[in-house]
Protein backbone atom coordinates (compact mmCIF):
# COMPACT_ATOMS: atom_id res chain seq x y z
CA UNK A 1 0.00 0.00 0.00
CA UNK A 2 2.92 2.33 0.76
CA UNK A 3 4.24 1.63 -2.73
CA UNK A 4 0.81 2.49 -4.17
CA UNK A 5 0.62 5.76 -2.20
CA UNK A 6 4.07 6.84 -3.36
CA UNK A 7 3.31 5.89 -6.93
CA UNK A 8 -0.05 7.71 -6.93
CA UNK A 9 1.50 10.80 -5.31
CA UNK A 10 4.18 10.96 -8.01
CA UNK A 11 1.48 10.60 -10.72
CA UNK A 12 -0.46 13.52 -9.22
CA UNK A 13 2.71 15.56 -8.75
CA UNK A 14 3.73 15.08 -12.37
CA UNK A 15 0.21 15.88 -13.59
CA UNK A 16 0.20 19.10 -11.55
CA UNK A 17 3.69 20.04 -12.72
CA UNK A 18 5.28 19.84 -9.26
CA UNK A 19 9.04 19.64 -8.88
CA UNK A 20 8.74 18.41 -5.36
CA UNK A 21 5.97 17.21 -3.04
CA UNK A 22 6.36 18.70 0.42
CA UNK A 23 3.32 17.38 2.25
CA UNK A 24 0.73 14.61 1.83
CA UNK A 25 -2.46 14.22 3.80
CA UNK A 26 -3.31 10.55 3.79
CA UNK A 27 -6.49 9.02 5.19
CA UNK A 28 -6.59 5.40 6.29
CA UNK A 29 -9.82 3.55 6.86
CA UNK A 30 -10.12 1.65 10.13
CA UNK A 31 -11.09 -1.49 8.19
CA UNK A 32 -7.58 -1.62 6.68
CA UNK A 33 -6.11 -2.06 10.20
CA UNK A 34 -2.86 -0.44 9.19
CA UNK A 35 -0.34 0.29 11.94
CA UNK A 36 0.47 3.98 11.42
CA UNK A 37 4.08 3.69 12.61
CA UNK A 38 4.81 0.76 10.29
CA UNK A 39 3.03 2.50 7.41
CA UNK A 40 4.97 5.71 7.95
CA UNK A 41 8.21 3.72 8.06
CA UNK A 42 7.26 1.96 4.79
CA UNK A 43 6.39 5.29 3.13
CA UNK A 44 9.74 6.76 4.17
CA UNK A 45 11.64 3.61 3.25
CA UNK A 46 10.23 3.67 -0.30
CA UNK A 47 10.78 7.40 -0.66
CA UNK A 48 11.18 8.38 -4.32
CA UNK A 49 13.07 11.56 -5.43
CA UNK A 50 9.93 13.71 -5.76
CA UNK A 51 8.99 12.84 -2.17
CA UNK A 52 12.44 13.05 -0.61
CA UNK A 53 11.51 15.80 1.86
CA UNK A 54 7.77 15.14 2.03
CA UNK A 55 5.93 15.16 5.31
CA UNK A 56 3.32 12.40 5.59
CA UNK A 57 0.27 13.33 7.66
CA UNK A 58 -1.62 10.11 8.41
CA UNK A 59 -5.08 10.00 9.91
CA UNK A 60 -7.33 7.04 10.72
CA UNK A 61 -10.97 7.30 9.59
CA UNK A 62 -13.28 5.26 11.80
CA UNK A 63 -15.54 2.62 10.23
CA UNK A 64 -19.21 3.53 10.10
CA UNK A 65 -21.61 0.97 8.64
CA UNK A 66 -25.28 1.32 7.73
CA UNK A 67 -27.72 -1.52 7.23
CA UNK A 68 -29.52 -1.42 3.90
CA UNK A 69 -32.36 -3.56 5.24
CA UNK A 70 -33.32 -1.63 8.41
CA UNK A 71 -31.20 1.54 8.01
CA UNK A 72 -29.54 1.05 11.40
CA UNK A 73 -26.11 2.68 11.55
CA UNK A 74 -23.24 1.60 13.77
CA UNK A 75 -19.54 2.01 14.40
CA UNK A 76 -17.35 -0.98 13.84
CA UNK A 77 -13.86 -2.02 14.81
CA UNK A 78 -12.58 -5.04 12.84
CA UNK A 79 -10.25 -5.93 15.68
CA UNK A 80 -13.36 -7.09 17.57
CA UNK A 81 -13.80 -9.92 15.04
CA UNK A 82 -11.06 -12.23 16.25
CA UNK A 83 -7.69 -12.74 14.66
CA UNK A 84 -8.49 -14.77 11.51
CA UNK A 85 -11.49 -12.72 10.43
CA UNK A 86 -9.87 -9.37 11.23
CA UNK A 87 -6.79 -10.40 9.24
CA UNK A 88 -9.02 -11.26 6.27
CA UNK A 89 -10.73 -7.85 6.51
CA UNK A 90 -7.28 -6.24 6.67
CA UNK A 91 -6.42 -7.71 3.25
CA UNK A 92 -9.82 -7.26 1.59
CA UNK A 93 -12.10 -4.98 3.65
CA UNK A 94 -15.20 -6.03 1.67
CA UNK A 95 -15.04 -9.52 3.15
CA UNK A 96 -16.48 -7.81 6.24
CA UNK A 97 -19.76 -8.86 4.60
CA UNK A 98 -18.85 -12.43 5.51
CA UNK A 99 -18.13 -11.76 9.16
CA UNK A 100 -20.33 -8.78 10.11
CA UNK A 101 -24.09 -8.57 10.40
CA UNK A 102 -26.36 -5.70 11.36
CA UNK A 103 -26.57 -5.73 15.17
CA UNK A 104 -30.24 -4.76 14.95
CA UNK A 105 -31.72 -7.03 12.26
CA UNK A 106 -28.93 -9.51 11.44
CA UNK A 107 -28.63 -8.63 7.74
CA UNK A 108 -25.23 -8.83 6.01
CA UNK A 109 -26.49 -6.25 3.49
CA UNK A 110 -24.84 -3.13 4.86
CA UNK A 111 -23.04 -0.19 3.36
CA UNK A 112 -19.56 0.82 4.42
CA UNK A 113 -20.15 4.56 4.87
CA UNK A 114 -16.64 5.40 6.04
CA UNK A 115 -13.52 3.58 7.09
CA UNK A 116 -12.46 1.57 4.03
CA UNK A 117 -9.43 2.09 1.88
CA UNK A 118 -6.42 4.37 1.92
CA UNK A 119 -6.58 7.59 -0.01
CA UNK A 120 -4.58 10.73 -0.58
CA UNK A 121 -6.77 13.62 0.53
CA UNK A 122 -4.43 16.40 -0.54
CA UNK A 123 -0.92 17.12 -1.68
CA UNK A 124 1.23 20.23 -1.23
CA UNK A 125 4.28 20.85 -3.37
CA UNK A 126 6.59 23.22 -5.16
CA UNK A 127 6.20 24.04 -8.86
Amino acid sequence: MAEAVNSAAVEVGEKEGLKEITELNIRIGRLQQIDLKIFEFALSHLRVPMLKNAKFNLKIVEAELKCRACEHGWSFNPEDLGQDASESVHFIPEVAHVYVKCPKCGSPDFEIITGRGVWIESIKGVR
Partner: protein
Amino acid sequence: MVDPRLSIVNKRLAKVKKIIAVSSGKGGVGKSLIASTLALILSKRGHRVGLLDLDFTGPSTHVILNTEGYSPKEEEGVIPPEAHGMKYMSIVYYTRDQPTPMRGEDMSNAIIELFAITRWEALDFLIIDMPPGIADATLDMIRLIERIGFLIVTTPSKLAFETVEKLILLLKDLKIPIVGIVENMKMKESNFIREEAEEQNIPYLGEISFDPWVEDSIGDVDKLLQTEFAQNVRKTTSNILQLNP
Protein backbone atom coordinates in the same frame (compact mmCIF):
# COMPACT_ATOMS: atom_id res chain seq x y z
CA MET B 1 -9.13 12.48 -3.40
CA VAL B 2 -6.82 9.94 -5.02
CA ASP B 3 -7.21 6.19 -4.66
CA PRO B 4 -3.59 4.98 -4.67
CA ARG B 5 -4.56 1.38 -5.45
CA LEU B 6 -5.40 2.28 -9.04
CA SER B 7 -1.85 3.40 -9.73
CA ILE B 8 -0.37 0.06 -8.73
CA VAL B 9 -2.73 -2.48 -10.34
CA ASN B 10 -0.90 -2.66 -13.68
CA LYS B 11 2.50 -2.42 -12.00
CA ARG B 12 1.60 -5.60 -10.12
CA LEU B 13 0.97 -7.22 -13.51
CA ALA B 14 4.02 -5.77 -15.26
CA LYS B 15 5.83 -9.11 -15.42
CA VAL B 16 2.80 -11.02 -16.72
CA LYS B 17 3.06 -11.61 -20.45
CA LYS B 18 -0.54 -12.55 -21.30
CA ILE B 19 -3.70 -11.98 -19.32
CA ILE B 20 -6.70 -14.05 -20.37
CA ALA B 21 -10.13 -13.55 -18.80
CA VAL B 22 -12.23 -16.69 -19.24
CA SER B 23 -15.62 -15.16 -19.57
CA SER B 24 -19.20 -15.61 -20.74
CA GLY B 25 -22.32 -13.58 -20.54
CA LYS B 26 -24.00 -16.73 -19.27
CA GLY B 27 -23.59 -18.75 -16.07
CA GLY B 28 -23.24 -22.52 -15.97
CA VAL B 29 -21.38 -22.87 -19.28
CA GLY B 30 -18.21 -24.31 -17.71
CA LYS B 31 -15.98 -21.25 -17.34
CA SER B 32 -14.37 -22.36 -14.10
CA LEU B 33 -13.62 -25.87 -15.33
CA ILE B 34 -12.20 -24.52 -18.58
CA ALA B 35 -10.16 -21.82 -16.79
CA SER B 36 -8.74 -24.34 -14.31
CA THR B 37 -7.98 -26.98 -16.94
CA LEU B 38 -6.51 -24.44 -19.36
CA ALA B 39 -4.22 -23.15 -16.58
CA LEU B 40 -3.18 -26.69 -15.63
CA ILE B 41 -2.44 -27.65 -19.25
CA LEU B 42 -0.43 -24.49 -19.89
CA SER B 43 1.53 -25.18 -16.71
CA LYS B 44 2.15 -28.83 -17.70
CA ARG B 45 3.50 -27.56 -21.02
CA GLY B 46 6.16 -25.62 -19.17
CA HIS B 47 4.60 -22.16 -19.09
CA ARG B 48 4.64 -20.06 -15.92
CA VAL B 49 0.97 -19.74 -15.05
CA GLY B 50 -1.21 -17.94 -12.55
CA LEU B 51 -4.90 -18.63 -11.97
CA LEU B 52 -7.13 -16.03 -10.35
CA ASP B 53 -10.69 -16.82 -9.36
CA LEU B 54 -12.60 -13.56 -9.71
CA ASP B 55 -16.03 -15.08 -9.16
CA PHE B 56 -16.28 -13.58 -5.67
CA THR B 57 -19.86 -14.58 -4.90
CA GLY B 58 -19.58 -18.08 -6.40
CA PRO B 59 -15.92 -19.17 -6.44
CA SER B 60 -15.38 -22.78 -7.47
CA THR B 61 -11.86 -23.24 -8.84
CA HIS B 62 -10.61 -24.06 -5.32
CA VAL B 63 -12.99 -27.03 -5.33
CA ILE B 64 -11.95 -28.14 -8.83
CA LEU B 65 -8.27 -27.95 -7.87
CA ASN B 66 -8.70 -29.02 -4.25
CA THR B 67 -6.58 -26.24 -2.79
CA GLU B 68 -7.53 -26.75 0.83
CA GLY B 69 -4.63 -25.92 3.12
CA TYR B 70 -3.02 -23.45 0.71
CA SER B 71 -2.73 -19.79 1.69
CA PRO B 72 -0.93 -16.71 0.37
CA LYS B 73 2.21 -15.42 2.02
CA GLU B 74 2.25 -11.82 3.25
CA GLU B 75 5.33 -9.99 2.01
CA GLU B 76 4.93 -6.40 0.80
CA GLY B 77 1.51 -7.44 -0.44
CA VAL B 78 0.57 -11.08 -0.79
CA ILE B 79 2.28 -13.79 -2.81
CA PRO B 80 -0.12 -16.44 -4.14
CA PRO B 81 0.75 -19.99 -3.13
CA GLU B 82 1.83 -22.54 -5.70
CA ALA B 83 -0.83 -25.16 -6.36
CA HIS B 84 -0.34 -27.92 -8.95
CA GLY B 85 2.58 -26.07 -10.49
CA MET B 86 0.87 -22.70 -10.83
CA LYS B 87 0.28 -19.61 -8.71
CA TYR B 88 -3.27 -19.69 -7.41
CA MET B 89 -5.29 -16.82 -5.97
CA SER B 90 -8.89 -16.72 -4.80
CA ILE B 91 -11.04 -14.74 -2.40
CA VAL B 92 -11.78 -17.97 -0.53
CA TYR B 93 -8.51 -17.48 1.37
CA TYR B 94 -10.24 -14.53 3.02
CA THR B 95 -13.86 -15.69 3.18
CA ARG B 96 -13.17 -19.17 4.55
CA ASP B 97 -15.62 -20.37 1.88
CA GLN B 98 -18.55 -18.63 3.59
CA PRO B 99 -21.32 -16.81 1.66
CA THR B 100 -20.00 -13.43 0.49
CA PRO B 101 -22.96 -11.17 -0.24
CA MET B 102 -21.54 -8.12 -2.00
CA ARG B 103 -23.18 -5.38 -4.00
CA GLY B 104 -21.62 -3.69 -7.00
CA GLU B 105 -19.47 -1.07 -5.30
CA ASP B 106 -18.14 -3.56 -2.77
CA MET B 107 -17.40 -6.00 -5.59
CA SER B 108 -15.44 -3.34 -7.45
CA ASN B 109 -13.49 -2.38 -4.34
CA ALA B 110 -12.69 -6.02 -3.57
CA ILE B 111 -11.46 -6.57 -7.13
CA ILE B 112 -9.22 -3.49 -7.02
CA GLU B 113 -7.93 -4.48 -3.60
CA LEU B 114 -7.10 -8.01 -4.73
CA PHE B 115 -5.20 -6.77 -7.78
CA ALA B 116 -3.44 -4.11 -5.70
CA ILE B 117 -2.18 -6.52 -3.05
CA THR B 118 -1.34 -9.58 -5.17
CA ARG B 119 2.26 -9.94 -6.30
CA TRP B 120 2.13 -12.22 -9.35
CA GLU B 121 5.76 -11.75 -10.35
CA ALA B 122 6.90 -13.21 -13.71
CA LEU B 123 4.24 -15.26 -15.52
CA ASP B 124 3.68 -16.31 -19.10
CA PHE B 125 -0.07 -16.49 -18.56
CA LEU B 126 -2.48 -15.18 -15.98
CA ILE B 127 -5.81 -16.95 -16.41
CA ILE B 128 -8.77 -15.21 -14.76
CA ASP B 129 -11.94 -17.13 -14.03
CA MET B 130 -14.60 -14.45 -14.44
CA PRO B 131 -18.07 -14.39 -12.88
CA PRO B 132 -20.97 -14.65 -15.34
CA GLY B 133 -22.52 -11.57 -16.86
CA ILE B 134 -21.33 -8.20 -18.04
CA ALA B 135 -21.61 -6.36 -14.75
CA ASP B 136 -19.01 -5.06 -12.29
CA ALA B 137 -16.21 -7.62 -12.68
CA THR B 138 -16.24 -7.46 -16.49
CA LEU B 139 -16.41 -3.68 -16.52
CA ASP B 140 -13.62 -3.44 -13.94
CA MET B 141 -11.37 -5.76 -15.93
CA ILE B 142 -11.96 -3.63 -19.02
CA ARG B 143 -11.38 -0.41 -17.07
CA LEU B 144 -8.39 -1.48 -15.01
CA ILE B 145 -6.34 -4.16 -16.70
CA GLU B 146 -4.21 -3.14 -19.65
CA ARG B 147 -3.40 -5.92 -22.14
CA ILE B 148 -6.37 -8.09 -21.16
CA GLY B 149 -7.90 -10.47 -23.67
CA PHE B 150 -11.20 -12.30 -23.28
CA LEU B 151 -11.64 -16.00 -23.94
CA ILE B 152 -15.35 -16.51 -24.44
CA VAL B 153 -17.08 -19.69 -23.36
CA THR B 154 -20.49 -20.69 -24.63
CA THR B 155 -22.55 -23.83 -25.00
CA PRO B 156 -24.16 -24.80 -28.33
CA SER B 157 -27.48 -23.49 -27.00
CA LYS B 158 -29.05 -20.62 -28.86
CA LEU B 159 -30.35 -19.37 -25.53
CA ALA B 160 -26.85 -19.32 -24.04
CA PHE B 161 -25.41 -17.63 -27.10
CA GLU B 162 -28.12 -14.98 -27.02
CA THR B 163 -26.51 -13.72 -23.79
CA VAL B 164 -22.91 -14.53 -24.76
CA GLU B 165 -23.33 -12.44 -27.89
CA LYS B 166 -24.02 -9.38 -25.74
CA LEU B 167 -20.61 -9.78 -24.10
CA ILE B 168 -19.03 -10.10 -27.56
CA LEU B 169 -20.77 -6.95 -28.76
CA LEU B 170 -19.71 -5.05 -25.65
CA LEU B 171 -16.06 -6.10 -26.04
CA LYS B 172 -16.03 -5.33 -29.74
CA ASP B 173 -17.65 -1.97 -29.15
CA LEU B 174 -14.95 -1.11 -26.60
CA LYS B 175 -12.21 -2.56 -28.84
CA ILE B 176 -11.13 -5.06 -26.19
CA PRO B 177 -9.22 -8.03 -27.65
CA ILE B 178 -11.13 -11.31 -27.88
CA VAL B 179 -8.83 -14.35 -27.77
CA GLY B 180 -11.53 -16.53 -29.27
CA ILE B 181 -14.62 -18.55 -28.52
CA VAL B 182 -14.84 -22.06 -27.06
CA GLU B 183 -17.93 -24.20 -27.52
CA ASN B 184 -18.44 -26.30 -24.39
CA MET B 185 -20.80 -29.22 -23.58
CA LYS B 186 -21.36 -30.13 -27.20
CA MET B 187 -23.73 -33.09 -27.53
CA LYS B 188 -24.53 -33.24 -31.24
CA GLU B 189 -23.28 -31.97 -34.56
CA SER B 190 -24.05 -28.33 -35.15
CA ASN B 191 -22.25 -25.48 -36.86
CA PHE B 192 -24.27 -22.78 -35.15
CA ILE B 193 -21.50 -21.43 -32.85
CA ARG B 194 -18.75 -21.87 -35.45
CA GLU B 195 -20.81 -19.86 -37.95
CA GLU B 196 -21.62 -17.19 -35.38
CA ALA B 197 -17.91 -16.89 -34.55
CA GLU B 198 -17.08 -16.51 -38.22
CA GLU B 199 -19.80 -13.91 -38.63
CA GLN B 200 -18.41 -11.96 -35.67
CA ASN B 201 -14.87 -12.43 -36.99
CA ILE B 202 -13.75 -14.13 -33.77
CA PRO B 203 -11.42 -17.18 -33.76
CA TYR B 204 -13.34 -20.41 -33.12
CA LEU B 205 -10.99 -22.21 -30.73
CA GLY B 206 -12.72 -25.56 -30.74
CA GLU B 207 -15.46 -27.65 -29.27
CA ILE B 208 -15.51 -29.55 -26.01
CA SER B 209 -17.83 -32.55 -25.96
CA PHE B 210 -20.17 -33.03 -23.05
CA ASP B 211 -18.24 -35.37 -20.76
CA PRO B 212 -20.46 -37.03 -18.12
CA TRP B 213 -17.37 -38.29 -16.26
CA VAL B 214 -15.79 -34.91 -15.64
CA GLU B 215 -17.92 -34.47 -12.52
CA ASP B 216 -16.15 -37.44 -10.91
CA SER B 217 -12.81 -35.71 -11.37
CA ILE B 218 -13.69 -32.55 -9.44
CA GLY B 219 -11.07 -32.14 -6.71
CA ASP B 220 -8.65 -34.58 -8.33
CA VAL B 221 -6.38 -32.80 -10.77
CA ASP B 222 -4.68 -35.96 -12.09
CA LYS B 223 -8.06 -37.51 -12.83
CA LEU B 224 -9.31 -34.27 -14.40
CA LEU B 225 -6.36 -34.18 -16.79
CA GLN B 226 -7.21 -37.71 -17.95
CA THR B 227 -10.78 -36.90 -18.95
CA GLU B 228 -12.05 -36.47 -22.49
CA PHE B 229 -12.93 -32.93 -21.40
CA ALA B 230 -9.24 -32.18 -20.69
CA GLN B 231 -8.27 -33.80 -23.98
CA ASN B 232 -10.53 -31.33 -25.76
CA VAL B 233 -9.17 -28.41 -23.71
CA ARG B 234 -5.65 -29.47 -24.83
CA LYS B 235 -6.72 -28.90 -28.45
CA THR B 236 -8.21 -25.54 -27.51
CA THR B 237 -4.99 -24.65 -25.66
CA SER B 238 -2.94 -25.48 -28.77
CA ASN B 239 -5.19 -23.23 -30.82
CA ILE B 240 -4.82 -20.40 -28.30
CA LEU B 241 -1.02 -20.77 -28.34
CA GLN B 242 -0.96 -20.87 -32.12
CA LEU B 243 -2.99 -17.66 -32.36
CA ASN B 244 -1.15 -15.95 -29.46
CA PRO B 245 2.51 -16.94 -29.82
